Structures are given as C-alpha cells and as structure tokens.
C-alpha cells in the first residue's frame, strides 16, 4: 500500500485540539479488506473500527453501556479531583473549603498538583494574557474525562477587571466551562455547591464508557 506523508502547516496546527501524541504524519485510511498489508498501528485502528462497528450494529454496545454506565458514572462523579492551582482571591476560598470548617474531602475532593492526575480544573481568578496559553496547556494536559469550573466573577467574565488591557474576558473564551460559580470572592459553601452541581451534570450528561467515541 502507499504511505503518504501529509505535513500540515505547523503554525495552523499549533494549539489545535489535544496534542497528546506526537503524530507528525497523518496517514491515510487503511484500504478495506486488505488487512494483511497494514502496519501495526493501522491494524490496531482497523481492529478498533471493526469491533466498534460490530458492537454498534448488533446493539451490544448499547447493552453493555446501559449496564456499565451507572457504575462508571458513579465512580466518576463521586471522585472529582481538582487541580491544585491558585490564581487569586478565590484560591484562598478554595483552600478554606478544604479546611476543617468546610472540609470538601468529605465529598472526595482531593487536590493534586499534576494536571495528568486531575479531573477538574478550577479557574479561580482573572486569566491574564500572559497566563492564557499556560492555562490552555494545563487543560490540554489533563486526561479525559475532564471538567472545568469557572469560580468567581473574574473567571466568568473578567469581574472587576473587565476594562483591563491584560485580562481575558472570562475563561470560557478559550476553554469549555462546565460549571459557573458566581461570587466575588466565591464562598466555600458556594464552591461545595458547585461540586454538587458538577456531579449532577456528570450524572445526567456523561455517556457510557464502553467503546466511547
């Protein structure tokens, strides 16, 4: 078979999507039926496609998802691990929410410092132009499934710095935000309610995990 290397314009490709693998070359789809000539990664992809198609057409995927989805979803929603990342005032309230008076660890909230190990990105302050690329990188480094909480007015729409030359007008201008928590600063109770709202969202909207596309 022919192997064709397609070099995209690197400037255009930069920042597009989640770059978790360094596939500099884009290979064309494997020819159908000719599975003996495939390379190993193409073969895996072909097997993946075949299994998905069979499971989808026979309805196995639906059945398995219907059975396993509640269990996986239960685990996902009761263990939201946020990234330990403080920007401004709300970061202190995030810390206070973990403190003895409010204790978010009752809800399974464990702060981890590495984005690879987190599920929830809490944007708790104004995002400045200098920070924006870094925050986007942090978001992209997190493993799926991941959620974003915009905590406080600054992260929702700039807050008191709405007319500043260096503050981005809200975190949702460059990353998808799932839960908005208003307040300036957000009280710890409101953050806890935000986590409960996130659980609600996960329960209602997260699809099953068997052969997820």
């Amino acid at each position: 078979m022919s192997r064709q290397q397609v070099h995209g314009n690197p400037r255009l490709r930069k920042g597009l999507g989640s770059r978790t693998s360094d596939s500099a070359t884009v290979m064309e789809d494997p020819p159908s039926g000719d599975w003996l000539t495939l390379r190993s990664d193409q073969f895996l992809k072909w097997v993946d496609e075949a299994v998905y198609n069979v499971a989808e057409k026979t309805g196995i995927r639906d059945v398995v998802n219907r059975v396993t989805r509640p269990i996986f979803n239960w685990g996902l929603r009761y263990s939201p691990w946020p990234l330990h990342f403080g920007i401004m005032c709300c970061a202190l309230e995030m810390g206070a929410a973990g403190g003895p008076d409010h204790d978010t660890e009752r809800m399974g909230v464990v702060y981890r410092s590495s984005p690879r190990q987190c599920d929830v990105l809490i944007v708790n302050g104004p995002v400045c132009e200098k920070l924006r690329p870094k925050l986007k990188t942090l978001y992209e480094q997190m493993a799926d499934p991941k959620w974003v909480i915009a905590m406080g007015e600054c992260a929702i729409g700039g807050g008191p710095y709405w007319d500043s030359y260096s503050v981005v007008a809200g975190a949702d201008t460059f990353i998808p935000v799932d839960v908005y928590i208003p307040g300036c600063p957000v009280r710890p109770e409101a953050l806890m309610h935000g986590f409960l709202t996130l659980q609600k969202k996960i329960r209602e909207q997260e699809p099953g995990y068997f052969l997820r596309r």
Partner: protein
Amino acid sequence: MAEMWIHMGPQHPMTHGLWNLRIKVDGETITDAEPELGYLHRSVEKIGERRKYFMNTTLTDRLCYASAMTWTHCYCLTAEELMGVEVPPRAKYIRTVVLELQRIASHLMWLASYLPDLGLITGFLYGMRDREMFLNLLEIPSGGRLLYNYVKIGGVKRDLPPGFDAKAERVMQTLERRLKEYEDLYDNSKIFRMRTDDVGCYSASDAINWGITGPNLRSAGVPFDLRQADSYDAYPELDFTPVTTSAGNGRSDCFSRYRQRIDEMYQSMDLVRQALVKMPEGKVMAGSVPVRARGEAFRRTEDSRGEALMYLIGDGTDRPYRWKIRSPMFTTVSAAPHFLKGYKVADVPAIMGSIDMCIGETDK
C-alpha cells in the same frame, strides 16, 4: 548531572500564587535563579484611573487577597491626605483594631501555607482553622468574609457592634492557646529545625540594600516598623516596640522569619487589646468627604508583608490622574536570586515560603 533550568510555575505547589521561578540547578544545588512575574498583571493602576476615588477600594481589596484590609486602608489614608480629610478618633481606633486582626489573619495564612512547603500538610489545616476564626470576627463589622471594603475614605463603613470586644477577646485567647501548641509542634520538632535553621540566610545590610522591608527585615534584627517610624491612625497612642528576631550576627534565616511572624501575632493581639480598651466614643465617618481632589500625596503603611506605599496624583477631577502602588513583595522577590543561590532544590519552597509571597499585590 549537567546544569539545567527548571521552571517552577506558574502552576506549582511552591508558588502560592501565580508566578514562575526559573532555577538553574547543578544536580540538586541551585546555581542561579530568576523570578518571572506578570501572570496576574491586572493593570490595577491603569483601570484605577478610570474609576472614581471611592470606587477604587474595590480594587485595593483585591490587591492582596490575604490582607485586604491593610491595602484598602493604605489607599484611604493616601486619599485622605490628598483631600485633606480628618478622620474621627473612633474611626482611627476601629481601623487599628481591624488592621491588627487582619495582620493576624494574614500571618496565619502564611503559617498555613508555609508548613506544606516543608511537607507537613497538617499545618495547612491548622492555620486555616485558626484563620477562619479571624475571618468570622472581621465579618461581624464588615459583612465580608475575605474582601471587606470596610475602610472608607474618611473613616470606616460601620461602627463596631456591641459585644465585639468580648468576641475578639475569646478568639484571641483561643489563638494564644493554639500558638502555644504550634510552638510545641514546630519549634521543638527536630526535622522542622533541620529544614529551617541556616537556610535562606541574608544579612541586615543586604536586606536594606535590596529593599526588603517588614517582617523579613525585622527578622534580621533591624527594629524598623512603619507603625512607629511613620505613624498613622491610633498607633502613636498605643504602647509597643517593634518585635525583632535574629539568627545571630544580624542575619535572617527561615526559622527567624517563622519566629518573627509568630511573635508579631502575639504583638498584634496585644495591640488589639490596647486599642479596644482605649477606644473613644463618637462618629466613625468624617462629616463631608470631597469627591474631587487636586495635588499629590503619598502615605506608607506597615502592611503584613512590609512597607506599602501609595502615591496618588489628582488633577481636579473625581478620578485619580496617576496611582502608583509600592508592593513590598515586588522588591523582595527581585532579591530572591541572591538568597536562593547555593541551597538545594528542596530548600526552594522553604525559602520562598518563608518570605510570605503574595502575588496579587506584586503583579498589581
């Protein structure tokens, strides 16, 4: 191992905020360091020129989120100097009380964030627990939990409610009891001393040259406190002398900085008690506060982290023409390469935590 640069930040548990410390390490020894700021630059000075004088207290509250009261107070003091407003004596005393309470809360926040830097996460929870008491106390007159907007140009927003001093006394007695526990837990801990003694040293003369002020300077044995040197509010009428600690030979190390802040908490509690006893009756707000101002004025106050200075220029309109903020941490961070060199990577959180970073005021 060859030398390499490590970026600590902007997302790093050491930073306590949003900045980037680039360190050059040889193995685990730091040979060079370069702080990088600006990830939280909100251009407060620029947008402050678009707002009226009394509206800017919203921004000053958010300058340093760990000690909002002191920054708003510094701004109001400057604006009063600019406008020629005389603050009633009761308001001065109330300001002194809330400032010292805020200083305790800020130092507790520092204590809370310093212990995780050394690997003791329990310390964070203890600090937060005690800080919560002071936030609740400050919530009583101001209505805000973290950002108060309580100090206004010409006085304070509301009078202290009756029974405030009894509540404050109870909270302070609790804190005194807890601080004794912490001294047992930290000062007598061999590992704590191993991590903090003779780490991050600088001499008093170096500190003065680099522009380090506040607790970080006093921990080198220099009795310089703006509450007395450039006195304001009710401080001239209170009886106190600056607390100093030293690591010997006029040097400051991480442990002396830790000790300094604990001692300042004791001193602040003493000041709160004095001010509550001496507090006169009367109004808490000046009769008339002008909206427009012309001229220039500056005042400096003793912030929880050092010398806060605000410089205001008015051009006769109701908005400031130029507003300049001196942040104590801005200068201190610039000196970080000097006192980081030669120590280990593991000492970076211990040193940078001990100088009590607050990025909100630094990046402005």
